């Protein structure tokens, strides 16, 4: 948990920019309440006619959300907006608004192409890829008459093929976008035109228009609220499409515009706002209306993509439309990353390029030598005939002097040998990744039932990286834990009440409230401590009872929760759903409700709490929102008994510093002890305090609060100061313990990952004690581990600590006598180290020379736990590791605070959980639960890596063997680049003859079953050791390639030397034998033969045969009918058989000897799997066992 985690109030994504400088007056004489009738179930909208308890307040605007950190607002007011950076909107004056600026209309276009622009634009985009450019250059070279190796049509075939495939794919995607755009653009909105509201299509809405939105309608463009059905100008919006958060956000209309109705009085005014930008949490503007100048903030604007909820209607002025809306500006694709394997592959591609250059040089040099040697005879040589006599004068025919001939030969050989660079590999890899992604998405074991979330592959290019992850950086809350807060226990006035924990009697009376015969009940039940319940019911007047009473009142009141009443299946029962941005607060309010302090309604100026069956109204006189400096929030309540109290809740560290220590030292001590106990159980703690204000104190606060909140300059700082003044000398009421439950299967998952040799680092914003206790419960830490704690407050002590720790770790590792004890071993038998470091120390370590030491130390530790870290520090830690190792890093998290870390790591995984979608949006992969990391890495990662590694090597081999065969033949054609293999076959070779099997194998082959991989996580080490793709393998493959090409080429050459064989026949023999060879080669390496694999391999061979026959059935080609004639002869079949056997025997032997005498782990596991002596059952059962109750105590 980071420091600005929504510990108390606003989530970090709706941070301090929410601001309400001038809040609407709460209408004193509002209409009679209609809130409780069935049509209007929103108690929050209920206005009331009751009088305020403090009369002085009534005359002034009542402050509701006073100090919502006004940072940006302050900044905005300080620097007057520059005229060039603003857009000016004249409300309801389209002509004026749009005269100077070209504001975009509201029609959106997410499509890339139109029918006309599709072809040029799509081609342009496709040629951004280097691979396609290579194709293009080769094709263009071939069009030059001097270089025309292949026929024109043939040479553009491969390029045309890939372009077509990609274009069809793009066109289809674009068509789908086009369709959804059309639907979106044709939605209707009610727009104020000609003094009445008319329905208008969304696409016709213009900036400056006044739009009326009804409840549950979508918002057509970004607009500034003018008024809403709520007399106080509140509108609730659901932002699920924007940020994925399902709770309702409150937005406000300015009080000055509230009463204006466009039908009656013409609204004129001007809005000056910033240029469109993509910050969905920021908005700065001024509105000039009736000569008054009002500042507008992000809470005054509703954005396209949101829906209006719980508000009958809302009026607003369109300020940003169409593509300038924030949601459109934010719609960007997934980040593009490059996989490690692909980067590595580039080295080999360079090798192959060099090899290609060597081949071409050899050919052109030999050609030059021949030309020089035969220079005098060239005219006479029957097969060369330099001179052309057909026209009057005798001139050279296709002879440009021998220097140019060399150049042309070189270029021509590049054209002929072009597939040495396996361009088709890039396309196959993309297809394979799509296939792999399909299987990952479809994996029913990575489907999360609770959130109904499938696995998502957002980045398609890094599938295989999942098989090589060495470091996992995990967030804690929401990732390891569920982020479903549950109130567990409380320490009130020095007494620990934890009887409710774990022992909920089923028939516990659920507290509920009856209004007009309808029962209101909180949506979630919380186990209540029976003692505490009894105390609350019986002893209202004792000192103890009073404190308990105040404690729960604080829980119910000191928050920003909005209660929503929803229908339930029973018509007489309504459920209260507490909506709020902080799950902690929700948990506390539900807890308060369970103890009989049910928050029933919240309106602008007051809250209604049902206390033990008695409804009480409290005026909310002021509210200081949570900020990450104070780490606490406070609310000032006017109680029914006309007292004014300030309730504060916050983190223990800041709360104890503002308590009045003189009053109740014992209680403070007891509370501190309890807090310590709670956090060692892994509970999140909050301290609650209060103080009663005297009239003068209140007056003083009120006036300064008033001044601060209307200040134009430095409002945030002023408000913080006001808050600091009032949050003082508090009485500590107690503390609450909230459990953040560990997600299902987390300990097992961590254990598996550790066994697999993956280092798991947990980065959390929580307290050290909480972090350590979660560490224990998640099996990250074990009792055998030696813990190294680093929490220093200066650079020097940091350095000392680190050096000591390194010394100690060295000692420990030498004692165990094993340099590598921390890796690979699961920690039993050997002392392993756990490093626990806090954010303050990290401040001194990161970006200084101490980083090196930390890395050294961390590498010796099997566990690293960082607590109290800020979001940027998380990214810093990831960067620290990434910079220093070549190993792959993975970051997993669920919240906005993890975004930087997710983006920094090689692989970012987002948990689509409670905390919005920021993490998911930034991630490469998204899933529902932490434990899915195990199948993701150990199973899919392993498979993907193995498949991709093999596929790359195979593609190198496949193309190189073909090129070498062409090359050998060139040596026998006077170095003139004749190909015996027809040009069509050359082009179809990597498209039809051999493409499908590699793709099928790349998608479907599995070296080991899921069961084996899960029960032996160590098998993941294959990826760490780069077993499937390394330089050695590359060279071995290339040597094999050389041999195979020699076998394919020279067996027929020698067999037919000096015979009547013609070029086409032997060409067909070579074509067929190389295709059969590479397919059988692949077949030899396939591990699992399913029917699809069979179909692909044998199908390809048959397809090749058919293609060769078809090509030879075209009478206008040289090789007409050659295949039929050659197939009638014995030597053809003898050659074919001999080639296959001779070419594959060395590989077969080496493969067998390697597998038999130096088997890899994967190989042994495969054998064990096949022969059934693998103990599969037991570990898997443990793996999948849902651990409901964790052994915490």
């Amino acid at each position: 948990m980071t420091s600005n985690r929504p510990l108390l109030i606003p989530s970090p994504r709706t941070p301090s920019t929410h601001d309400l400088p001038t809040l609407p007056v709460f209408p004193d004489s509002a209409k009679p309440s209609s809130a409780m009738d069935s049509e209007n179930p929103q108690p929050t909208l209920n206005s009331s006619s009751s009088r305020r308890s403090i009369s002085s307040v009534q005359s002034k605007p009542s402050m509701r959300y006073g100090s919502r950190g006004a940072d940006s607002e302050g900044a905005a007011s300080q620097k007057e907006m520059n005229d060039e950076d603003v857009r000016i909107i004249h409300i309801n004056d389209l002509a004026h608004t749009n005269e100077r600026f070209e504001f975009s209309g509201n029609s959106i276009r997410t499509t890339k192409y139109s029918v006309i622009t599709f072809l040029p634009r799509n081609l342009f985009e496709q040629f951004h890829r280097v691979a396609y450019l290579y194709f293009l250059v080769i094709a263009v070279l071939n069009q030059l008459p001097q270089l025309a190796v292949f026929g024109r049509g043939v040479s553009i075939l491969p390029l045309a093929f890939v372009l077509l495939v990609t274009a069809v794919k793009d066109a289809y995607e674009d068509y789908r976008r086009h369709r959804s755009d059309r639907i979106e653009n044709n939605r209707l909105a009610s727009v104020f035109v000609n003094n009445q509201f008319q329905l208008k299509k969304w696409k016709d809405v213009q900036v400056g228009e006044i739009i009326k939105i009804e409840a549950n309608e979508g918002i057509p463009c970004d607009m500034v609220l003018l008024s809403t059905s709520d007399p106080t100008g509140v509108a609730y919006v659901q932002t699920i499409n924007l940020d994925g958060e399902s709770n309702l956000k409150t937005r406000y209309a300015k009080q000055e515009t509230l009463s204006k109705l466009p039908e009656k009085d013409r609204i004129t005014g001007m809005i000056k706002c910033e240029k469109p930008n993509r910050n969905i949490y920021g908005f700065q503007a001024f509105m000039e209306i009736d000569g008054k100048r009002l500042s507008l903030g992000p809470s005054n604007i509703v954005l396209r993509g949101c829906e209006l909820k719980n508000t009958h209607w809302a009026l607003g002025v369109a300020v940003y439309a169409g593509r300038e809306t924030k949601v459109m500006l934010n719609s960007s694709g997934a980040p593009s990353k490059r996989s490690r394997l692909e980067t590595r592959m580039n080295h080999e591609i360079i090798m192959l390029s060099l090899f290609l250059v060597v081949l071409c040089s050899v050919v052109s040099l030999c050609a030059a030598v021949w030309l020089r040697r035969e220079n005098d005879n060239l005219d006479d040589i029957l097969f060369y005939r330099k001179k052309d006599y057909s026209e009057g004068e005798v001139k050279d025919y296709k002879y440009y002097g021998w220097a140019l001939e060399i150049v042309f030969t070189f270029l021509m050989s590049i054209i002929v040998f072009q597939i040495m660079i396996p361009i088709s590999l890039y396309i196959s890899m993309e297809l394979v990744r799509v296939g792999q992604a399909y299987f990952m998405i479809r994996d029913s074991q990575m489907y999360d039932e609770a959130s109904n979330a499938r696995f998502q592959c957002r980045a398609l290019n890094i599938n295989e990286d999942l098989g090589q992850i060495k470091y996992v950086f995990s967030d804690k809350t929401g990732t390891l834990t569920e982020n479903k807060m549950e109130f567990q226990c409380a320490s009130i006035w020095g007494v620990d009440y934890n009887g409710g924990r774990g022992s909920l009697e089923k028939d516990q009376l659920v507290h509920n409230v009856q209004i007009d015969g309808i029962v209101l009940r909180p949506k979630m039940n919380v186990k209540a401590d029976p003692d505490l319940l009894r105390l609350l019911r019986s002893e209202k007047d004792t000192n103890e009872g009073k404190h308990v009473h105040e404690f729960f009142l604080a829980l119910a009141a000191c928050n920003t929760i909005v209660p929503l009443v929803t229908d339930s299946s029973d018509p007489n029962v309504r459920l209260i759903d507490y909506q709020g941005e902080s799950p902690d607060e929700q948990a506390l309010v539900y807890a308060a409700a369970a103890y009989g302090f049910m928050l029933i309604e919240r309106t602008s100026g007051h809250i209604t709490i049902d206390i033990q069956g008695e409804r009480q109204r409290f005026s909310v006189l002021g509210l200081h929102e949570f900020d990450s400096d104070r780490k606490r929030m406070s609310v000032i309540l006017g109680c029914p008994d006309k007292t004014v109290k300030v309730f504060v809740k916050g983190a223990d560290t800041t709360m104890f510093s503002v308590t009045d220590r003189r009053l109740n030292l014992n209680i403070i001590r007891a509370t501190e002890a309890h807090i310590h106990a709670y956090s060692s159980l892994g509970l999140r703690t909050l301290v609650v305090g209060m103080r009663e204000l005297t009239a003068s104190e209140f007056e003083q606060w009120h006036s300064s609060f008033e001044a601060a909140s209307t200040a134009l300059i430095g409002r945030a700082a002023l408000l913080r100061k006001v808050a600091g003044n009032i949050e003082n000398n508090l009485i500590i009421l107690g503390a609450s313990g909230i459990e953040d439950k560990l997600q299902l299967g987390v300990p097992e998952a961590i254990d598996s990952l550790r066994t697999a040799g993956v280092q798991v680092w947990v980065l959390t914003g929580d307290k050290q004690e909480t972090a350590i206790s979660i560490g224990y419960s998640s099996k990250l830490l074990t009792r055998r581990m030696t813990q190294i704690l680093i929490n220093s407050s200066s650079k020097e002590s940091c350095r000392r600590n680190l050096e000591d720790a390194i010394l100690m770790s060295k000692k420990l590792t030498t004692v165990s006598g094993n340099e590598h004890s921390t890796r690979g071993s699961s920690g039993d038998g050997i002392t392993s180290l756990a490093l626990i470091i806090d954010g303050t120390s990290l401040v001194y370590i990161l970006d200084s020379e101490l980083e090196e030491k930390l890395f050294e130390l961390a590498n010796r530790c099997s566990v690293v736990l960082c607590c109290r870290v800020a979001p940027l520090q998380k990214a810093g830690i990831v960067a620290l590791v990434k910079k220093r190792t070549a190993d792959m890093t993975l970051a997993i998290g669920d919240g906005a605070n993890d975004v930087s870390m997710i983006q920094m790591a090689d692989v970012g995984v987002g948990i689509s959980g409670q905390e919005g979608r920021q993490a998911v949006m930034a991630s490469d992969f998204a899933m529902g639960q932490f434990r899915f990391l195990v199948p993701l890495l150990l199973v899919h990662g392993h498979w993907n890596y193995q498949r991709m590694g093999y596929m790359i090597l195979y593609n190198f081999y496949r193309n190189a063997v073909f090129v070498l065969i062409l090359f050998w033949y060139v040596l026998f054609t006077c170095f003139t680049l004749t190909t015996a293999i027809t040009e069509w076959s050359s082009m179809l070779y990597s498209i039809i003859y051999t493409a499908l099997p590699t793709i099928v194998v790349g998608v479907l082959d599995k070296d080991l079953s899921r069961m084996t991989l899960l029960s032996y996580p160590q098998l993941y080490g294959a990826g760490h050791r780069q077993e499937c793709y390394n330089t050695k393998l590359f060279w071995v493959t290339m040597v094999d390639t050389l041999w195979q090409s020699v076998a394919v080429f020279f067996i027929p050459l020698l067999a037919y030397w000096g015979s009547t064989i013609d070029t086409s026949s032997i060409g067909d023999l070579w074509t067929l034998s190389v295709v059969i060879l590479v397919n059988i080669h692949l077949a030899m390496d396939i591990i699992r033969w399913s029917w699809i694999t069979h179909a692909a391999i044998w199908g390809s061979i048959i397809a090749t045969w058919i293609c060769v026959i078809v090509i030879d059935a075209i009478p206008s080609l040289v090789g007409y009918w050659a295949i039929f004639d050659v197939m009638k002869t014995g030597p053809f079949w003898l050659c074919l058989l001999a080639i296959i056997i001779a070419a594959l025997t060395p590989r077969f032997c080496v493969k067998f000897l390697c597998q038999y005498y130096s088997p890899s782990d994967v190989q042994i596991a495969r054998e064990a799997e096949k022969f059934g002596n693998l103990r599969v059952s037991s570990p898997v059962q443990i793996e999948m066992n849902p651990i409901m109750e964790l052994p915490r105590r």
Partner: protein
Amino acid sequence: MTPKGDKGKEGDSSFAKKKSRRPKYSRFSQQELPACKPILSPGWVVSIFITIGIVFIPIGFAALFASERVVELQFQYDQDCVPAKYKDNAVAYIQSNATDKTCTRKMPAVTSKMKSPIYVYYQIDHYFQNHRRYVKSRSDDQLRSVAKENSTSDCAPERFAKNGQPIVPCGLVAWSLFNDTYKFSVKNKTIAVSKKDITWKSDREKKFSSSVYPKNFQSGGLIGGAKLNSSIPLSQQEDLIVWMRTAAMPSFRKLYGRIEVDLDAHDEITIELQNNYNTYSFKGSKSVILSTASWIGGKNDLMGIAYLTIGGMCLFLAICFILMYVLKPRPLGDTSYLSWNRNASGGRLNF
């Protein structure tokens, strides 16, 4: 573990209301298609090698035997048939119209009885009939139909005759048509050489049209080789058809004709040949060959030797593997060989 397992955990009814995005279970999507997982066990490997050996060695012997039975007479005449005074300037001799190109020689004696049909080949070495310039210089369209007479775009430098008319058949390949002729006689009795059906049927019927007649052929400044009788359609110009099937290798034979009578052992064949074709400018050589045929074609020991070698190697490998298996076996799938198990038992580290 199974997808069925965790259904019913939550209330099924409440869950059904929401549209579940649970991936549909199928053996395909879970990558659990039934599959066979072969493993290279020593037994398999040895039996594969033995099978190969057993298959290859008989084939090898059969091929050698077939090759042995082929009787082949070869007579290289390119140097022999140049008169002594032109020995140093063979090119001039061959290019001159004045010189007598006839050359009568005795072929080597027939070694053993040659049964008909006996094939007559000419063999040229160092002749790059697969030279890129050469193979591209032809028009298959033109050969196929009269209408395409003018499609000579690839034929340069033999496209047009002096009068601007297209040459049929155009191109270097046709232009360089082989023009040596052979006449054989045994004991002063001429042996008829049949030149019918020495080409592929497909070529005669489809590729070379019976309605296309040679035109303007060999009328240019440079005569490459044989002239064609312009009253015979291309489909019957079998020498041309043979020649136009360009050879794959720089050393090649082409069928000249067939002798339909048997030749007895020790028969002395006299050959009367016209040495017209210029292989001298590129140091090529010319031979004439009489050969019987077998199922593996002409005389070719290589195929048999290759098969015997491969078969023998495979048997040898099989024996090696059997020995290795006996001497140093490894139980397949023994998990104690796994690297981490070896480490735990104090074995060598594998990191």
